[in-house]
């Protein structure tokens, strides 16, 4: 009996999981904010500032998606995730989008049932050595002691690289990047290896960065990108094309400085017009407002601006665009070529009932739920104490139905 009940509960949970995942867009709109998983702290990619606002390259993706969907780049609830908790948080529905320097791999895409919506940073594993060692190539590292974070793909890449090149090394296992910095500076190892972006950030924090060199060899491919759950194609499309819109904006020369002018009326370039919603109906096709891409771009600027502001050459991290430059330059980054020329497969997005207020939302002490449940209906939010008091304009006594 108990067993049956338990299985029954599991089935119900499973069914409702499917139901919930099928309408992430509706959930986000109803909630009034986007739950976005980020790293608990990675220099340049995601970190809270002194007043508690999250900043960084990955954070910008979250803000752009929130701006595209809700029209407000601050309507994001950032959920700090660790390497262990990130995938569970996504698959359980705790977060709607994971933007946490996650490498796109076969097993994560297929076995863990996620959908990578694109690549926002092409990374790769590199080496850092003190300049006084006089090493100019990773092939000279025979017999070196190497600081390496355990339990990561970098550990395997390192072993492969040294075996293929038939040279020996001695690993010094460490846990975190902070520990690695200390060990490396204290001379516990000759070489530190991790993702090149991480190495650059680490070197920038040294007292004398010039005393350390990054070796030219990049020994692995680490395409990092945001991801969503399998099974909700509409939501996957929204995040994919939001990222693409940022990249396309840079290709088309749309920046946060000129976007207001460009979006105010249709210009000469039909692609820009379609992107910014002054022509065509891309917004309607994707189930969003016509100005979705404009909002996404205005949130933090186009891809190039986001890059320069958070990790570019003028920041202390000082990463060059490299692989992450436009395809027209030397990089491989591009928005899908079909972006504006071909129509997207049309899908009929389920209608969002913005006006139905459920009583449950109001006693759940959720300001945002109450706000979103009254948006679009003929009602007003009266005060900020929860549960909020709501009065319909046409009938002041209708509070209890809300």
């Amino acid at each position, binding site marked *: 009996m108990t067993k049956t009940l338990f299985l029954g509960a599991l089935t119900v949970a499973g069914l409702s999981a499917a139901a919930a995942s099928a309408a992430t867009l509706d959930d986000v709109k109803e909630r009034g904010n986007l739950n976005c998983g980020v790293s608990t*702290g990675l220099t340049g990619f995601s970190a809270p500032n002194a007043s508690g606002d999250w900043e960084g390259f990955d954070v910008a993706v979250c803000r752009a998606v929130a701006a595209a969907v809700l029209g407000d780049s601050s309507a994001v609830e950032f959920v700090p995730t660790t390497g262990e908790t990130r995938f569970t*948080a996504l698959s359980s529905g705790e977060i709607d989008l994971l933007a946490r320097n996650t490498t796109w791999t076969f097993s994560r895409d297929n076995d863990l049932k996620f959908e990578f919506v694109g690549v926002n940073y092409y990374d790769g594993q590199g080496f850092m050595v003190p300049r006084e060692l006089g090493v100019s190539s990773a092939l000279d590292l025979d017999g070196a002691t190497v600081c390496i974070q355990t339990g990561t793909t970098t550990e395997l890449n390192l072993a492969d690289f040294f075996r293929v090149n038939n040279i020996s090394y001695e690993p010094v296992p460490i846990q975190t990047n902070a520990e690695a910095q200390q060990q490396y500076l204290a001379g516990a190892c000759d070489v530190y290896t991790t993702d090149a972006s991480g190495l650059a950030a680490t070197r*920038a*924090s040294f007292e004398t960065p010039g005393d350390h060199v990054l070796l030219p060899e990049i020994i692995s491919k680490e395409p990092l990108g945001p991801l969503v759950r399998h099974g909700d194609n509409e939501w996957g499309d929204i995040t994919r094309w939001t990222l693409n819109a940022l990249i396309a904006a840079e290709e088309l020369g749309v920046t946060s400085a000129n976007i207001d002018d460009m979006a105010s009326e249709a210009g000469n370039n039909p692609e820009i017009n379609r992107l910014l919603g002054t022509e065509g109906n891309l917004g309607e096709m994707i189930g969003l407002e016509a100005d979705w891409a404009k909002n996404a771009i205005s949130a933090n600027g186009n891809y190039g601006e986001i890059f320069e502001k958070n990790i570019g050459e003028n920041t202390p991290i000082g990463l060059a665009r490299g692989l992450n430059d436009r395809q027209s330059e030397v990089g491989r980054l591009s928005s899908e070529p079909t972006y504006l020329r071909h129509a997207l497969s049309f899908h009929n997005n389920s209608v969002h009932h913005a006006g139905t207020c459920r009583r449950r939302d109001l006693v759940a002490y959720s300001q945002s739920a109450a706000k979103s449940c009254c948006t679009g209906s003929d009602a007003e939010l009266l005060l900020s104490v929860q*549960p909020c008091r709501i009065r319909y304009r046409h009938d002041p006594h209708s509070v209890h139905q809300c």
Partner: protein
Amino acid sequence: MSDTDSEVISFFVREKMLEEQEPPLTERGAVKWLRENLFSSWLNGLLTIVSLYVIWYILSGIVPWLWSPTWSLGSLSECREVLTGLGETTHQACWGVIRDRWQQLLFGFYPSDAYWRPTLALVILLAGLAPVLFGSIPRWFLLFSAATPFVLFLLLWGGPIWTPLLVGVGLVLGVVAFRYLVGVNQIVAVLAAIIVPVLFWLFLVEPIAFELTYTAPIGLEFIPSKDFGGFMLSVVIGVAAIILSLPLGIMLALGRASDLFIVTKLSVIFIEIIRGVPLIVWLFTASLLLNYFLPPGTSFDLTLRVIIMVTLFSAAYIAEVVRGGLAAVPKGQYEGADSLGLSYWQSMQLIVLPQALKISIPGIVNTFIGLFKDTTLVVFIGLLDPLGLTSAIRASTDWNGIYWELYVFIGVLFFIACYGMGRYSLWLETKLQRENR
């Protein structure tokens, strides 16, 4: 021989008392203390000199590092510039990070205009604990202690005042039902004391709170527990788990020592399972596994899940500590209570537990101190406790490369809290001392 007799022997007889004199220089003051304590033999003298050298060596390393004029600076690179400009070594602390981020380390992402709420909550918590901790406070103050949890909940999380108030009313209803029915039948009274509040909470609290909030919207701005962080998160988890785990642990210990088969076995199974698995596994269970069992969309608060897990974990340890206390009470005390005709609960309440708990005080406080420090493990499930915030702070470009300053600050905070608990337990032991051993 006779002339010897006649010889005047001039004995000296002192006519007045000598003034008191200072003891010799080597037998008084600092010199005496030094001689007796530090240089009483050549070996001790040698050891003293070696120890002094070691102390000087350590302090000469730490003090210049600590004494660093970097309080007002805004980033690590500024610190380095200033220290180089002063012509000093750069092996000095950069305290600017504490000035810049101390509020974050204490309160996490709690809105800064509401910092008074956790601060006031701490004051109320200490005031509410006072009558429990110190016997000299008037007993009516206990009523205030009983109301404290609801006030704390309201202050920390906010929301309308009515929900915590009604939950409290439910408890009062339970007490009233018990008082009213206890004359009729004890078992019925106990059942009523449990069922009445539960029914009240399940079916009446929500609608009544809703109506009341509509008619009289009194309350504080709601702050979700996602915004809790820093030392405040450690204190919230630690204090809640400490307060909840003590009664639970005592019940488990009594259950394990009980004669009733099912009660004993259930207690043993619970204690052994919880104690046999590391805390970090339970935390992962709370954060990861439960997500799959709960229906999606139910955002069962992660902080609450963690508090529950930490409470259960510490209760298992407390149960074993109290069991040790129970075993140390002489058998004669149990038999004496029986021979007086006391019921099981009366004998436990009046005779056995007061003695057993007194014996267990060092063990209980020890468990609590360990529990409080273990709250930093939540960093592994993505909650930003003080240690989690260090990596977040280090990830900002201003402070990348900062290391020891943050840990020193956090270490001092934890030391103050844990040392305070330790001193309290010593004081309590002395106060409850009854033997003349």
